[in-house]
């Protein structure tokens, strides 16, 4: 089992020597940069490109106590063919469900490009024994999930027990085997951008394939500045090691225009190589229809009504 070394206080991250120094983040400048990127004016073919890409990057999500196989079936249909009246619209990247619903989700998307992602590790709080978490991870992988979304243990993180957080990610990564591991930082609970940067680097060092902002269960989920902060950490890891880590902002992205802003930010921070669902996902439940409406507006020239787009 991987074991993080005991580290001195203040310089605690179990990073390989070649990983970037932790560094810090200036909140005001970060927010200004994010706001300035959000002023890009994306028109016509550039906008259609972004909107179609947004569809292909979308993780359609349902994480409710009231989820049923029926609900998952409807979500899967929407994921595979988001706009029944327009076959040109691509499928979304994945559907994201609770562990119990993985088997029905897998059955529904079989033979399509849509992947099944499952939250695990006592989502959303992460407050369970490690054995339980690992068992849950193994179970969703055995049942066919393509992606595992874990949450970091914020308690130890906020009390500077970084080695514990690191160790847990390493073990989950082992337990999830070949499937993609997305590590959720739950940024709303981390308090500062400095912590977001620290947690991003820690997750990437421990083996995350993706880092993700939020569970979606708390107010104050993904924002443009927090996403930029994480993209910059990803960029540092790439520049130091060549590893390409994925990014997923989740929660609070409801409008097509916002999605375009996120993609502009991605494009101008990490470059065109990251413009793929392999390296970027948008976690959202209500974004898709707005994107579809905008796409149809671009095609027809007429402003659209939600009545013409299915609610699933």
């Amino acid at each position: 089992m991987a074991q993080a070394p005991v580290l001195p206080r203040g310089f605690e991250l179990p990073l390989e020597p070649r990983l970037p120094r932790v560094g810090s983040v200036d909140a005001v400048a970060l927010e200004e940069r994010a706001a300035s990127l959000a002023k890009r004016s994306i028109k016509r073919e550039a906008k259609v490109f972004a909107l179609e890409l947004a569809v292909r990057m979308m993780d359609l999500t349902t994480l409710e106590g009231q989820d049923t196989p029926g609900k998952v079936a409807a979500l899967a249909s929407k994921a595979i063919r988001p706009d029944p009246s327009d076959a040109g619209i691509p499928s979304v990247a994945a559907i994201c469900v609770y562990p119990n619903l993985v088997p029905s989700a897998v059955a529904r998307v079989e033979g399509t490009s849509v992947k099944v992602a499952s939250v695990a590790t006592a989502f959303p709080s992460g407050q369970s024994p490690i054995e339980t978490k690992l068992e849950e991870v193994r179970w969703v992988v055995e049942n066919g999930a393509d992606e595992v979304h874990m949450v970091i243990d914020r308690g130890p993180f906020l009390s500077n027990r970084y080695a514990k957080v690191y160790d847990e990610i390493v073990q989950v990564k082992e337990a999830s085997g070949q499937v993609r591991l997305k590590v959720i930082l739950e940024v709303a609970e981390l308090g500062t951008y400095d912590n977001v940067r620290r947690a991003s680097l820690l997750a990437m060092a421990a083996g995350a394939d993706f880092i993700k902002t939020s569970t979606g269960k708390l107010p104050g989920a993904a924002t443009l500045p927090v996403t930029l902060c994480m993209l910059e950490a990803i960029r540092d890891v790439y520049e130091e090691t060549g590893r390409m880590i994925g990014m997923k902002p989740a929660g609070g992205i409801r409008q097509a225009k916002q999605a375009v802003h996120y993609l502009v930010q991605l494009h101008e921070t990490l470059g065109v190589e990251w413009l793929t669902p392999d390296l970027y996902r948008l976690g959202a439940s209500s974004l898709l229809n707005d994107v579809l409406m905008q796409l149809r507006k671009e095609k027809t020239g007429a402003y659209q009504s939600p009545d013409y787009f299915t609610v699933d």
Partner: protein
Amino acid sequence: MAERLPVKKTYKLFIGGAFPRSESGRTYEAEGQNVGRASRKDARDAVRVARAAWPKWAGMTAYNRGQVLYRLAEMIESRSAEFAELSTGRDEVERTVDRIVWYAGWADKLAQVLGSSNPVAGPYFNFTVPEPTGVVAILAPDEPPLLGLVSRVVPALTGGNAVVAVASETHPLAAIELAEALATSDVPGGVVNLLTGHRKELAPWLASHMDVNALDITGAEGASAELERAAADNVKRVVRGDPDSQSPWEIASFLELKTVWHPVGQ
């Protein structure tokens, strides 16, 4: 019985805390004495030592500068008889001492009166503080010989500047007496340099000196246009003050304002 022959003082320049003769070896006669007649090279040397002495003076706490100036007032008061003889009299000396005390009390209040914090429209803390401009060249007025010099030099000092002053040409002895008080005070050597000599000869060199930050032409006596033109070579601050005023704005005329921005964020 023969009267005792008094030992006469040689009136020299005051540069870098020491009393050198003019490098030119020249003197001129004023008030019945031979007085050092500074050359352009003496002026140059004075600027050099003023520049070197300036950071220490500017770097003192304002409280400390105030105390040093107060101490200077004490020194002058204790020699008031000599100063009275070399100036227009006791009244001038008393006003001089009181003026220095008045300015001494300003040292640690300037930033509060002249500075500000500025409510910018954004997540920044922004404040403005006065700072000394650096090396100030002062052409002191001829009259009154002591109070005129002090009224120009002390405001510059209070703000943290180093000074090269050309004393009253017609009544230079009070300036030398002042130099002796300065030399025994806690004003660091080189912070005040006093040159005696011909103003018309020295002024152009100070006005055009590229390492002088401000030029006080209060005592220039009409010939100021040429000096002001020379002062433009390095964009000097040109100050035309009052030979007998007492005002914080006299201090402000030797100050710069620095504004600092910093973001406010977590």
